[in-house]
């Protein structure tokens, strides 16, 4: 085969493919979203389960792949799987594998999101993390999208006039110089893109996150690496022991040489404790 023949063959292949490309935009969209690949994977999962002795039945008439997040509902088509172990409860296999994440309960759709516990029942702390695919280097466009996203979440009726604090994180492999300039401003923590009283928006690369985590880990390790000599340990045990015995003696009212000498009979410590008690009722 020479170059001209190979070149002609490449053109022929693509010409044939273009003629067969579906014209239905919705089918094209489904293919772009990898739905046929999901079906292919599903078919192997079904086969493997059957080969392991599970019995599969399909509840419904059509498999339905979804193009956007949706809830798993028993009323929708799914596989029911009976275990070879007859006593085990049945299993269910749904194909709408896209589902709401924890944070989406509150804010719609995100890669990862969670409600952070807070002491006050009236206040809510939210942490939302948006993960970008590794091959994407984010720029002004993605930053603008993030800002729109944040604003739309904050404008949700559920969050207007309520006490909330938000931390949004956009995590990416790399970002361009425009983004770098906007997240490295004087008197601000590195990576902080928006800093408002009730919300902060951060842009971090995986490398930065890992580096920071390593730094925190090292700090904790350093704090735990306390070298104490045997003498020091024994001295501290003796002090602790003495203080425990002393307070026990005080509580029991047995008194000690020191207290007897001071004539306090229970001493200042006891009196301070007694001082917190209500006065005795009159006789």
């Amino acid at each position, binding site marked *: 085969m020479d170059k001209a023949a190979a070149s002609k063959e490449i053109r022929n292949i693509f010409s044939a493919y273009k003629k067969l490309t579906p014209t239905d935009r919705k089918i094209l969209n489904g293919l772009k979203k990898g739905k046929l690949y999901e079906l*292919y994977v599903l078919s192997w999962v079904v086969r493997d389960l059957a080969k392991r002795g599970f019995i599969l039945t*399909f509840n419904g008439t059509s*498999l339905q792949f979804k193009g956007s997040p949706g809830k798993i509902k028993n009323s929708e088509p799914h596989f029911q799987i009976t275990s070879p172990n007859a006593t085990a409860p049945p299993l269910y296999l749904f194909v709408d594998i896209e589902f709401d994440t924890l944070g989406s309960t509150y804010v719609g759709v995100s890669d990862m999101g969670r409600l952070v516990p807070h002491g006050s029942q009236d206040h809510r702390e939210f942490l939302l993390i948006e993960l970008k695919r590794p091959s994407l280097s984010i720029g002004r466009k993605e930053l603008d999208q993030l800002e729109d996203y944040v604003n739309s979440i904050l404008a949700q009726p559920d969050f207007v006039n309520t006490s909330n604090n938000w931390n949004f994180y956009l995590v990416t492999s790399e970002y361009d110089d425009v983004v770098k300039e906007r997240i490295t401003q004087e008197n601000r923590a590195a990576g902080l893109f928006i800093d408002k009283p009730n919300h902060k928006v951060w842009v971090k690369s995986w490398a930065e996150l890992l580096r920071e985590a390593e730094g925190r880990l090292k700090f904790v390790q350093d704090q735990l690496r306390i070298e104490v000599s045997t003498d020091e340990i024994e001295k501290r045990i003796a002090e602790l022991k003495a203080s425990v015995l002393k307070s026990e003696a005080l509580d029991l009212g047995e008194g000690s040489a020191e207290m007897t000498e001071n004539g306090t009979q229970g001493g200042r410590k006891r009196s301070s404790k007694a001082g917190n008690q209500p006065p005795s009722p009159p006789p």
Partner: protein
Amino acid sequence: MDDDDFLALIAELETQLLEVGASELADENNYTHRDENTGEDRLLEPRERLIAMLHAFDRFLAVRDGSTFRNAMSRIRQYTNGGGPERVLFLPVADESVRGERDFYDVPDLSDVPDLSQVRRSVALLIEQLRSEPEPRPRGGAL
């Protein structure tokens, strides 16, 4: 064919891939290997790169091919009691509260996906022919 010929074919293939929306497959950064001596990532040699790109295009076709659909459905039906699903629908919007009525009744059926097996056979044949080519002559070619 020499390396220059293969590079010209790669350029031709990149153009075609971009035209069908497969820009990721056209990106040469996806066709590298790690140099064991230097630890650096290097582009595959032109012939190997061309073959790798054609393989990637075959995978691209596979997830758009009606025969993949039929094989998957046949496998599911074979291992499901009672025959399995009759159809496979793609719902562009998941939640019926958001989905318009028209959308609900106008869901595409993945069985309408065209059969690309002939195109894929041509790709496989081209790969075979390129593989059987003698080792490429050095760039410039003349001895």
